[in-house]
């Protein structure tokens, strides 16, 4: 379609035409059928509650009240809705909702460096493995379950991390079209959604820009040019979408917002609910700092615990009330756990051998504990879960075939989850 023809079209018509054509979007059917039969009940979208820095399993969901004080720590354990299962005292609301949670107390991974473990937990592959840059889970979900022509991005990240966001947002070989929209502060509306020019004028300009970009990309076969085009197109779609209102928490009734807690993490959980409600496939809400090596960080983490209790518990209720919990997989995880023994600085150091993650919602049978650690939480005694099995479990819950092979830019096919990863059957039982 030439530009003159576009000018004669109405705005809606032009947008429909341009989004498919001039902007160069490949509108194709979203997901291929998995090669294995999909589980009967699966989630359609996913919310990851990312605990940056690595929370202590002993001070969250695998307390050891019987152990010595150098292991037990200073916090007490409380009973939960599940007989015989205790949580740390800082999680009373979640304790009452334990029947909705599946606790994976047998996490046993082998990366205890923040950078490497963050990438490992997000991609299922060790950094640098096979010389490839692997997609994070959000990019996998975006590519497999999202729609490439969706008005809102399929993958949104909110909250703050200790460092840069790459390990949460990098789409790797899935390409820039599956990259994340990073919205740091959930309590601020997404800015600059309104064009300076009139809608018609903006549409005309955007069409010329898209055409020039296409010509430039054809001359310079360069990845950054492709990425810039993808982000431009996403931005234009978002500007036109009524659903972008979901980013503005001021539209939320004060009462329902309050339950999430007066904390950035709670507002992040609320934003996650609003986004999955309008069809966003993957939202990651980040919360740090859990890197509790020293006493002062340990004390700071008390506030994080309260924020998690309110935010996570309200998210479960809110999604259930709206009939969305069965369709939404919720994952609570950090990059590793902490050492069972309290160190001389009153904190705990990195520990990957035995720790805990929590699943809830779509596809997951709540009210169960999978895996068991020993009396001090130093070793996994039953049902150890490695990163591959964990990733395969998330995929299965989302109806994604973990063994599906993806063609990479270097011409090698790579399975979504590394060879050997098996979903944990008990999660779905």
């Amino acid at each position, binding site marked *: 379609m030439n*530009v*003159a023809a576009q*000018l004669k079209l109405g705005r809606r018509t032009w947008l429909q035409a341009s989004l498919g054509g001039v902007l160069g979007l490949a509108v194709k059917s979203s997901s291929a059928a998995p090669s294995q039969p999909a589980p009967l009940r699966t989630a359609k979208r996913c919310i990851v509650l990312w605990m940056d820095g690595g929370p202590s399993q002993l001070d969250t969901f695998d307390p050891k009240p019987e152990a010595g004080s150098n292991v037990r720590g200073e916090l007490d354990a409380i009973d939960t809705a599940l007989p015989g299962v205790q949580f740390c005292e800082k999680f009373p609301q979640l304790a009452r909702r334990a029947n909705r949670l599946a606790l994976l107390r047998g996490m046993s991974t082998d990366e*205890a*460096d923040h950078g490497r473990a963050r990438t490992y937990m997000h991609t299922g592959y060790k950094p640098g493995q096979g010389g490839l840059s692997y997609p994070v889970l959000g990019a996998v979900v975006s590519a497999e379950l999202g729609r490439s022509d969706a008005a809102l*991005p399929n993958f949104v990240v909110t909250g703050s991390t200790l*460092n*840069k*966001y*790459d390990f949460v*947002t*990098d789409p790797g070989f899935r390409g*820039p079209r599956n*990259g*994340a*929209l*990073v*919205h*740091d502060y959930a309590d601020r509306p*997404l*800015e*600059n*959604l*309104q*064009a*300076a*020019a009139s809608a018609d*004028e903006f549409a*005309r*300009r955007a069409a*010329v*820009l898209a*055409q*020039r*970009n296409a010509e*430039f*990309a054809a*001359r*310079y*076969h*360069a*990845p*950054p*040019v492709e*990425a*810039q085009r993808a*982000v*431009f197109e*996403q*931005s*234009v779609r*978002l*500007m036109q979408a009524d659903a972008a209102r979901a980013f503005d928490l001021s539209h939320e009734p004060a009462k329902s917002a309050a339950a999430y807690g007066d904390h950035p993490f709670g507002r992040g959980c609320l934003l996650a609910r609003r986004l999955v409600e309008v069809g966003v496939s993957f939202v990651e809400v980040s919360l740090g700092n859990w890197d509790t*090596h020293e006493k002062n960080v340990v004390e700071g983490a008390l506030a994080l615990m309260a924020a998690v209790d309110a935010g996570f518990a309200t998210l479960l209720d809110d999604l259930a009330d709206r009939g969305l919990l069965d369709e939404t997989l919720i994952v609570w995880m950090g990059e590793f756990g902490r*050492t069972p023994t309290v*160190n*001389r*600085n009153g904190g705990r*150091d*990195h520990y990957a051998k035995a720790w805990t993650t929590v699943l809830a919602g779509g596809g997951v049978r709540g009210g169960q504990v999978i895996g068991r650690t020993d009396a001090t939480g130093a070793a996994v005694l039953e049902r150890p879960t490695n990163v591959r099995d964990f990733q395969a479990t998330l995929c299965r819950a989302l109806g994604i075939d973990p063994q599906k092979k993806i063609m990479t830019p270097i011409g090698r096919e790579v399975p979504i989850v590394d060879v050997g990863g098996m979903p944990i059957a008990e999660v779905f039982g």
Partner: protein
Amino acid sequence: MIRVVLLISLVASSAVAADPPKPDKNKFVKGPAIVQRPPRDPLPLVAAIDREWLRALEAAGVPASPEADDAEFLRRACLDLSGVVPTYQQAIAFLDDDAPDKRRRLIDELLAGRGYAQHFGRTWRRLIWPPDYTMAKSGVDRVTPWLADQFYAERPWNELVTDLLTVEASMTHDPRGAFFAANSDATTIQPNRLADATGRLFLGVQIGCAECHNHPFARWKQEDFWGLAACFSRVRKVSKSDASLTESPESPGGGLGEATITVADGSGKAAGTVVPARFLGVAAAPRFDRPLRPQLAEWITSQDNSYFARAMVNRLWAHLLGRGLVNPVDDLREENPPSHPELLDRLAAEFVASDFDVKHIVRAVCLSRAYGRTSRPLPENVADVNYFSHTAVKVMNPDVLYDALHTVINADPRVRPPMKGVKPTKPIGRGKPVEVEPRDAFVRFFSRAALGDDPLQYGYGVPQMLQLLNGVQWNGGAPFLEDLSTTPAERRAAIETIHVVALSRRPTDAEVAELLTLVGDSADPREAYAGVLWVLVNGAEFVVNR
């Protein structure tokens, strides 16, 4: 050769060291002018670069792309060397210049300018002190101007690094304290972070992995890492209120005995062991009866240290070509060989022989055929990333993007192009602290999303794109558009002017025709001109350095 290089900011900061530190952002000590030395002859090195570059291409059977056209070369050189896009005047003057040596003159002019010092100062400020760290509370940045002065004065790299490693002035008020400030927290110097940063920045080695474990294949063991960290273990702040740095023994009253460090809890098998200070890979102990940092700096910057020169020339190559001869640029080790071993050796040897002259290496690379290729690939070399058959398409970092937008918005095409290069308008440096806002706000917002510092990745996301597309900062109108003629006969010329301002090249006929559709029979051609500028500035071509 003129060797009298007077550094005004050194004069200024030694005055600060004598007095109690008193930050005053209005104080601007003006010193004698800096005298640059005449450039060394780059041509032998240029020939060596081209020889090795061509040899590798031929051995791999990969053809090189043709030479870049003038517009491509001009914009690339300006962005790489000064971090700014050419002004309208610079572009017209260069494009219309018929002299055969115009590229050489362009490189020389850019390297002699403040823009070069500013850009390299900013680049190293980002490396030494990434934007995640909050800058001085006073709201001014003293580090970038100081670094800019060093690059402007052609300070040998070994001297600059020695300054950063051995600084005794205040960590919080003296720019030379940046390296220590970036690797410390509010109360304590962090020897392990200093060791990691020393390895990455000055030696091009990632010894940080050895903080917690011995890698089965890597050369560096935990004791190497902690031995280097121990070299910083005696560094202290003079007092709570005075952040000047001094070396003092562990225990009060104790003499300068063996400097050691205890491997931190959680650092793998070696945790709790006591490691004495050692330089990387050096068996002999340093002299413990005198300060360790000067000895460390001497060892690091020694002509015999095979890592120091290689690390810097590899970084300079990567800065200009988008990719190092070794990648990642801070991972020099036997198991990660360079793509062009002889070339890396030659550049390093030349760097040493030139007394660590950064400009000399940069000049030679910029004059090479390798650097002068177009970034448009041929079908036969489109997959090549190792042989530099076509130059990389890089993405402007947030600092450069900020300046580029300002250059375009503040363009004034009415001023006649001078015959020689245009002086940069607002130089920084000369010891003058720069206000960090609003630049820092922009840089922070755009750095949040950037994928590390990889110039080959477009890391900006939707929120950043939305600010560029719709933000009032960038859409409040550019004054030069008001001066353009709106008569139908002159609209074509107006479009050409906007195009040169934004992209430093004249548009093709097809491009003019396409952009003219935006003007069409518009009732308000100036509004349409703003639309043309918007299209050009928000396209992929603007934000990349090709």
